[in-house]
């Protein structure tokens, strides 16, 4: 087995037992990137030199007996997350030359442990998209089939983990951006509860929905990384004060615990038009496996599910349009100087710096928030959001978690949906509702289509129940 193929858990053990060094492990990942990135396009920036020097420092930490869970382990970061002294473009040309002077809090926590930053992952610009085709640095290709999309928006992170170009990745999920590509690339991805992990240093998209989470090869790794990055942060006032549970030891909870669990199957998710038969079969098989483990399967209803996409695509562009106002070519990023006036500078910097989808979202948001339309769009959406949240609150009185597919269909061909933005928005139908309600959800690999494409299964839990969500994900992963 090549070192780059190790999981976080295996790599940490190998480093601790001095079976190999962080430098060797980092070199193995860099070699894999060097070999595969030109085809997959998962990285916008690769940290060849700094990664090796960080690995040397990590080896010294290990030699001094100061190793912590993530010391010396190479990780990749979505380019919409700030990394000190490493270029962070958000996959948009307006930040082509931007090098943040500080680390996002979650990244700082990992780097303080001696984590090795190997590079920055391609994504849909500022997280806008479900196929990773809205990057100004080209689409990410699915490692399982290079003609297919990797999913988005964190497609580069998912592809990098799936193709062993890094050991794990840190990404961001506003409406499905971690879970969706995790499903398409066959890796584990979790959106934590809103407020569980600090958003400080994340390029903001929709501030009332944005979350940061890991993408990993196994659920055990997910728990391990979550335990290291979760927690309140004075720099993000929306983080919750709740103590971080011992996720890593928690997920291995005895199988006995499964016997008392009630798993809800929300019927609205299975009545979605155009749902792929193989997706349905694989999800049904996983439901059977949970039954075998002693779980009680309960048919439940979330009546407002069909409104979640409309709610999501009003709230998100509205918050997007105000958040992205900061990118204007004034204080940082790329300034266009072709025009004469201040207005020209704003309008041209934004014209050449944003891809079409970013412009569309800013325009929709500007419209939805403008005088006369606020009540009809933004306020109405936030009211329906209350009803969607209430659906979940009520259903979690009856069941512990919900199981659904992550995506209604397997990975599609690059170019297939780019001309129809609304069709692309509707792809979020399974992942959007949990985001709107601010609750945790994990995507774990469920199986593969006959043509070998990965299909993910999603477990959704009540607020702050990521421990339970990962626990069930762990046993699902084991029940092949």
């Amino acid at each position, binding site marked *: 087995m090549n070192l780059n193929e190790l999981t976080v858990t295996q790599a940490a053990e190998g480093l601790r037992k001095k079976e190999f060094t962080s430098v060797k492990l980092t070199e193995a990942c860099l070699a894999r990137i060097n070999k595969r990135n030109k085809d997959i396009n998962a990285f916008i920036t690769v940290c060849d030199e700094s990664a090796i020097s960080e690995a040397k420092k990590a080896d010294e930490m290990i030699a001094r007996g100061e190793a912590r869970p993530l010391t010396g382990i190479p990780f990749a970061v979505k380019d919409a997350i700030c990394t000190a002294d490493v270029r962070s473009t958000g996959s948009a040309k307006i930040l082509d030359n931007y*090098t943040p*002077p*500080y680390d996002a809090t979650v990244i700082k926590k990992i780097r303080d442990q001696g984590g090795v930053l190997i590079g920055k992952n391609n994504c849909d610009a500022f997280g806008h998209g479900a196929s990773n085709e809205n990057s100004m640095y080209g689409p990410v290709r699915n490692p399982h089939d290079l003609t297919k999309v990797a999913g988005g928006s964190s497609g580069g992170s998912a592809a990098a983990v799936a193709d062993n170009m890094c050991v794990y990745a840190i990404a961001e999920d506003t409406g499905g951006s971690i879970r969706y590509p995790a499903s398409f690339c066959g890796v584990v991805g979790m959106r934590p509860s*809103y*407020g569980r992990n600090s958003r400080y240093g994340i390029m903001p998209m929709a501030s*009332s929905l944005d979350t940061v989470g890991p993408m990993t090869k196994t659920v055990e790794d997910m728990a391990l990384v979550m335990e290291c990055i979760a927690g309140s942060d*004075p720099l993000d*006032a*929306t983080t*919750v004060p709740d103590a971080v549970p011992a996720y890593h030891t928690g997920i291995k909870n005895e199988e006995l615990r499964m016997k008392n669990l009630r798993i809800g199957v929300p019927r609205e998710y299975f009545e979605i038009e155009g749902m792929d038969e193989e997706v349905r079969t694989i999800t049904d098989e996983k439901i059977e496996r949970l039954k075998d483990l002693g779980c009680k399967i309960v048919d439940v209803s979330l009546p407002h599910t*069909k*409104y979640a996409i*409309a*709610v999501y*695509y*009003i709230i998100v562009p509205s918050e997007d349009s105000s958040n992205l*106002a900061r990118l204007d*070519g*004034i*204080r*940082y*990023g*790329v*300034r266009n100087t072709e025009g*004469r*006036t*201040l*207005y020209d*500078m*704003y*309008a*041209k910097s*934004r*014209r050449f710096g944003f891809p*079409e989808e970013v*412009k*569309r979202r*800013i*325009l*929709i948001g*500007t*419209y939805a928030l*403008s005088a006369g339309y606020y009540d009809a*769009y933004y*306020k*109405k*959406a*936030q*009211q*329906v*959001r*209350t*009803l969607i*949240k209430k659906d979940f609150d009520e259903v979690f009185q009856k069941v512990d978690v919900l199981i659904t597919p992550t995506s209604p269909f397997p990975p599609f061909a690059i170019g297939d949906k780019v001309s129809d*933005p*609304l069709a692309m*928005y509707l792809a979020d139908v399974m992942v959007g509702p949990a985001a709107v*309600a*601010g609750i945790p959800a994990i995507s774990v690999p469920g199986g593969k289509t006959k043509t070998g494409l990965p299909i993910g299964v999603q477990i959704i839990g009540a*607020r702050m129940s990521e421990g339970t969500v990962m626990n069930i994900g762990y046993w699902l992963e084991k029940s092949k």
Partner: protein
Amino acid sequence: MTLSIEEVRKIAQLARIELTPEELARHAETMSAVLDYMNILNEVDTTGVEPTFQVTGLENVYRDDEVVECKLRDRLLKQMPEVEMEELVVPGVFD
């Protein structure tokens, strides 16, 4: 179409984004399709329903008002598109 090209031109001006005539036409078409889809929300009776602006339930999160030194000055200056005598240069605001 819900939105005319002229309306999109006005919105783009408010949002400070220059668009070509082709882009204006395309955005008018795709934005109209998206906004038409949003009408689905009119099926839902929201009389008396409070909006959810945030999900944590946290209120009045305070911190001490302490002066903290920012050690990023030079690195922030380095990110600026144009600097003169350690100050940011911008085009004139008034003609």
